């Protein structure tokens, strides 16, 4: 049985219509005209227990709105929603027992208190049995290296330390589901990796379902095998990460270092993406022309000193999807 299920989930926000300028601002004080904006539009998906899904999309796509509805702090305009068998906005407190949340932009730790006190407080909030609490804390403390700053008030922690604390806090009560919203934003490479491996390990051990929203697609590649892509409130792709790469990642780039300075570079079947000095980047569609054929043509026409083929990373695939649209990828992306 699915642990998270949404059917035709919609959320429409109403705001007072506002004309530009000072006059408009004053008029808005007395205005009765409303504007409606669909933040989430007929979103349906279902997750099995233990699944890790990347819920991604550009800014304002409706990611956070969906997460707020799944956590029960926002009431949907229409549609159905079930999280571990509960309707989150109707059973907010019961739903809260089942979930853990990490917001990269906002801490759930208690600002004035030492980190350890925040954990103690969470223990009593979630009524975690003492021995289980001790086990979890010991494990997390070791994985995230928390011991050093357990006694430090949260407001004095660095961002990396605070985020590590926040992850431990979100998992301390063994939630069935965790929502991670931009969890690695602003962190350095080492901290990102520490957190990713923590999430990978702890959620796999416990069979936790993970919903990850992020702009850093490296997070998704590292943790999720499935992604749901959302844009303008609508799901535009739902499936395996690999399939996305297969279907949309049809282009490769051949990076050529020229041995001589040529005024112009042109290869039949490939387009020149960029050129900086002696380094030229040629893009081709692997379904139309093979890498081998492109390499052969390059070597026939120019003297080269180095050559490399670059696979598209998920980041560039998604970036192109945002820009070029999602419909019929094979046609849309043909050069």
């Amino acid at each position, binding site marked *: 049985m699915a642990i998270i299920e949404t059917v035709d989930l919609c959320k429409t*926000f*109403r705001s007072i219509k506002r004309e530009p300028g000072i006059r408009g601002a004053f008029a808005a004080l007395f205005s009765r005209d409303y504007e409606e904006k669909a933040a989430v539009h007929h979103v349906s998906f279902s997750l099995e227990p233990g699944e890790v899904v990347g819920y991604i999309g550009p800014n304002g796509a409706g990611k956070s*709105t969906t997460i*707020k509805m799944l*956590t*029960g*702090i*926002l*009431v949907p305009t229409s549609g159905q929603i079930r999280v571990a*068998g*509960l309707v989150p*906005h109707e*059973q*907010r*407190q*019961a739903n*809260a*027992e089942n*979930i853990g*949340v990490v*917001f990269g932009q*906002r*801490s*759930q730790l*208690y600002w*004035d*208190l030492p980190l350890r*006190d925040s954990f*103690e*407080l969470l223990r*009593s*909030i*979630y*009524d975690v049995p003492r021995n289980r609490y001790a086990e979890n804390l010991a494990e997390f403390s070791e994985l995230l290296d928390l011991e050093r700053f357990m006694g430090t*008030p949260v407001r004095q922690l660095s961002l990396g330390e605070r985020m590590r604390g926040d992850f431990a806090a979100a998992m301390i009560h063994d939630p069935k589901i965790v929502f991670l919203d931009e969890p690695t934003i602003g962190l350095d490479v080492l901290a990102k990796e520490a957190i990713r491996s923590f999430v990978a390990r702890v959620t796999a051990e416990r069979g936790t379902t993970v919903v990850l929203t992020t702009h850093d697609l490296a997070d998704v590649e590292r943790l999720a095998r499935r992604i749901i892509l959302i844009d303008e409130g609508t799901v535009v792709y739902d499936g395996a990460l690999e399939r996305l790469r297969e279907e949309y990642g049809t282009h490769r780039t051949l990076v050529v270092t020229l041995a001589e300075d040529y005024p112009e570079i042109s290869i039949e079947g490939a387009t020149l993406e960029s050129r900086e000095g002696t380094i030229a980047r040629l893009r081709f569609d692997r379904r139309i022309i093979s890498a081998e054929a492109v390499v052969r043509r390059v070597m026939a026409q120019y003297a080269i000193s180095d050559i490399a083929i670059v696979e598209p990373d998920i980041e560039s695939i998604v970036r192109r999807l945002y820009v070029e649209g999602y419909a019929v990828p094979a046609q849309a992306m043909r050069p």
Partner: protein
Amino acid sequence: MIVARKRFRLEPYVEFAKRAIAREATYRFDVFTGLGSFVVRIYLLRMVWFALYAHNAAPAGLPLHTIITYSAVALLMGLVLDIDQTRALHDRLHDGSIATDFMKPISVPLYFFADGTGEVLFHAALVIPGLILALLFVHIDVPSFPVFAAFALSFVLGYFVGFFLNFMLNCTAFWTLEISAVQLIVTWLTDLLGGQIVPLILFPAFLGKVVYALPFAAMFSTPLLIYIGTIPPSRYLEVMTLQLFWIVVLGAISTVMWRAGARRVVVQGG
């Protein structure tokens, strides 16, 4: 689908209160400045009353030492009642962290109540050194035990009136996000119309009638007038019933405001 309602657990709220005490204790500087300002204010008030009484006979039949007792006890009460114990509600609405509170399996208004109570309990502990200072610096009257017990009960009732006033005030942040201007006005009103600075019995006749009908009097004036004996034991029931009336009314308004505010958050996304 029938969902068994989980048993209510008091433990998290006791913990919230304890952590609030611990948090307040970390601001040690505040404690000393609070006591320092108490001494300065009580000394200034004493000077003012001395000067006034030098030119006038006792107004409203209050002898000098009674009015000084009144002022000192009012300042001591202020150590507790002047705290905006639900400020956290405004703060968490303002920076949006209220969302994380709603994601926890707790009653959010009870959380604010517990947190505020912890804060107040910490500051209430300062009343003892404050009282010793008051006894050292100025002469204050100490009433008989039954009168003191009535005062204490009335003080607790006054605390709840103040709690709901503050809670309502902080609830307005659901709509306005910014409350400092309104707060300033309410602080002045409670100090002046509540009788903390000048006893309400010294107000001119018409104004005097109005101020007794306001909830502010239920905070400071009622317990204070019990303390100095202006309200005799025969009227205890009447004045405390009025305090209770305000608790019920303000509590009801607070509930309505909280529900409307929380609804606004869950419908409009804050």
